[in-house]
């Protein structure tokens, strides 16, 4: 017998010194461990970025210096100073000092200054554009996940029926078209061929003159502009949720506790929701962590297609203009938002599944 077949755990912990026990409890705490892991990941990723920028042959700083000398006729020293200011790096200091400064700057939220729009800090750019991405991607993800789970559940219940077949075809088709191509198709068909949507007016994040406020008009306008990105996220991701949920539900329907619930004479609705649905959806929350990364990463192209001014739009602009400080900062933020979203999904999972020991 392996350790997995041991007798169930009996309550009652170890008795050590009270303070040592408290320290251990904190260290062992699921949340603490998970947050520590997330912070560690952030550190590793930012370190990777630092060394990419500093050490790669033909690295952005060297390239920028070269560009300044070439285009503006600066001498090497001046160009170097300007580059240092932009990247918030002291190029004369030893590498370890530069690295330390970089990390301290990160902690202070100082990510340097944009090259293409001088004087604008990267932090302020992020602060301006990030909320729109969170808004559109967040709504897209929640809608897609919810719709996917509901449809998947339905498909499993009506397995091999007409609805199941139709939805399976739909799911396979929409999830095999890359999201940015679907975006182009939406523009081509809804905007250009059929003229159902005023594509030109829908660009950007808000119509001219509308300012952020807690009003219905503002929300309506924000949704109007985010409509196409959201539809694209939902269409391209809902298929996977549907098929995953269908598979998971079919597995759950075969579980003994579902048969026992039926033997207990429970009403169908209760079995479907609390017994089948809830358990079938659980494994999908682990997939959510991977999906979040994909959606945030993919938002980049969709925002470019629809000219939706979120963080991805900024990134593609920065890449095109080789605005390295912005590229670096935005990339870091995108990664951090994925790490944060994963953290959230993990906590959510621990809360939904009592078998995951927390605390």
């Amino acid at each position: 017998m392996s350790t997995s077949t041991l007798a169930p755990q009996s309550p009652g912990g170890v008795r050590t010194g009270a303070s040592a026990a408290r320290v251990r409890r904190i260290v062992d705490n699921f949340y603490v461990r998970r947050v520590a892991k997330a912070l560690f990941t952030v550190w590793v990723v930012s370190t990777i970025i630092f060394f990419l920028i500093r050490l790669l042959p033909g690295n952005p700083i060297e390239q920028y210096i070269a560009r300044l000398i070439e285009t503006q006729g600066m001498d090497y020293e001046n160009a170097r100073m300007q580059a240092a200011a932009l990247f918030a790096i002291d190029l004369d200091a030893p590498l370890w000092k530069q690295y330390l400064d970089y990390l301290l700057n990160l902690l202070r939220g100082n990510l340097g200054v944009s090259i293409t729009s001088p004087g604008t800090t990267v932090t302020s750019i992020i602060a301006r554009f990030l909320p729109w991405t969170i808004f559109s991607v967040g709504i897209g993800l929640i809608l897609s996940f919810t719709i996917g789970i509901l449809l998947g559940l339905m498909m499993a219940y009506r397995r091999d029926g007409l609805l199941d077949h139709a939805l399976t075809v739909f799911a396979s088709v929409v999830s095999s078209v890359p999201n940015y191509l679907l975006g182009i198709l939406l523009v081509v068909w809804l905007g250009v061929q059929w003229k159902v949507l005023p594509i030109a007016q829908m660009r950007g994040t808000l119509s001219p003159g509308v300012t952020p406020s807690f009003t219905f008009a503002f929300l309506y306008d924000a949704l109007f502009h985010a409509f196409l990105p959201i539809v694209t996220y939902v269409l391209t991701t809902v298929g996977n949720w549907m098929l995953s949920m269908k598979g998971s539900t079919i597995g759950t329907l075969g579980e003994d506790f579902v048969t026992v619930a039926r033997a207990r004479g429970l009403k169908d609705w209760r079995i479907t929701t609390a017994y089948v649905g809830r358990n079938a959806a659980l494994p999908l929350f682990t997939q959510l962590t991977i999906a979040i990364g994909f959606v945030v990463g993919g938002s980049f192209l969709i925002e470019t297609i629809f000219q939706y001014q979120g963080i991805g739009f900024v990134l593609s602009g920065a890449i095109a203009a080789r605005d390295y400080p912005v590229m670096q900062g935005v990339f870091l933020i995108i990664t951090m938002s994925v790490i944060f979203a994963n953290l959230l999904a993990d906590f959510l999972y621990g809360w939904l599944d009592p078998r995951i020991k927390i605390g």
Partner: protein
Amino acid sequence: MTKGKLDWQMDEQQNGKAPLSLQNVHVSYATRRGKVQAVRNVTLDLHAGESLALIGESGSGKTTLGLAIVRLLPETAQIEPGAIFYRRNGREVDILKLDRNEMREFRWRDCAMVFQAALNAFNPVLKIWAQAWDTAKAHGWHDKEAVRQRLVELLEFVQLDPRRVIDAYPHELSGGMRQRVLLALSLLLNPQVLILDEPTTALDIITQRTIIKLLRKLKEEQGFTMIFISHDLAIAAELADRVATMYAGRIVELGASEDIFYRPRHPYTLGLIRAVPTVTGGFEQLFSIPGSPPDLIDLPTGCKFHPRCTFATDRCKVEEPELEEVGPGHTAACWHWQKVEEELRRNPLHRGVLSVLEAVSFNEEAVS
């Protein structure tokens, strides 16, 4: 726990009619390869207060039959022809004719089924109390306090500490505890019939004993009507008043427990008994049954046991025997049951007390 407290409603006033009568029940599954004949022509009366064991190996149809009674078979299964009559308080229904909602109400309230895999019998994300309350609510109970009170009593009856169990998640309980919780839950709605499918399989020996003791208590003190489904002869020996042996979807022998264990008349029953050793009995000569269970899609002709039977003759290959009376309250479906009787006279079953005494005397010699 007294009888009054648990409030069993024994229907003695049934003018002699059994609470559960199976008449000519057939169950088959449609598969790509053909029709699986899982249960064939089962006719059986379950009397009030008796405990009946259905024994047989995997594929004998015993679990299918159990599931057919509460109609929990997969959708590909067909239960026909046949009828399953259920009687309580002078009311008689054919279970197979109940509509969806009537069927739902029938389950657990009239007939509860305790499953083999108690490990997975509970929804892992709901506490025990929530699942008990779900059950009560589905059958029209509204008084939360009363349900809780009853659950506490039942948990005490199965010797569990209600304070520890009631607000626990299933994974926090051991396998034996979960099996007992399920047993307690099965009594919640005061059902008349209890079907137990492999109630002790996969449990440790000492835990098995705890469950067996509880079931005996249900049987002897509360006079419960129960069906045990098991591949394990020991469960039948420990708990059953009557035993039905199933083979290839049919009942091939049915009789009082003592008759089946000491005076079997069907070669298959005899084979099973001769294949299983006891612990505290003496050293028995054991034999296995040659061959393997038949393919339920492509059943042999005549008696389905004939390819594995040492008594088989040409007649067995052609004609399938029906259950016939071989003793008082004892029926067997075999053309040659008299030969089995002779065989037993020649080579008696070395079981029971005699062999035990031999073993003990051996021991005393060794000590002295």
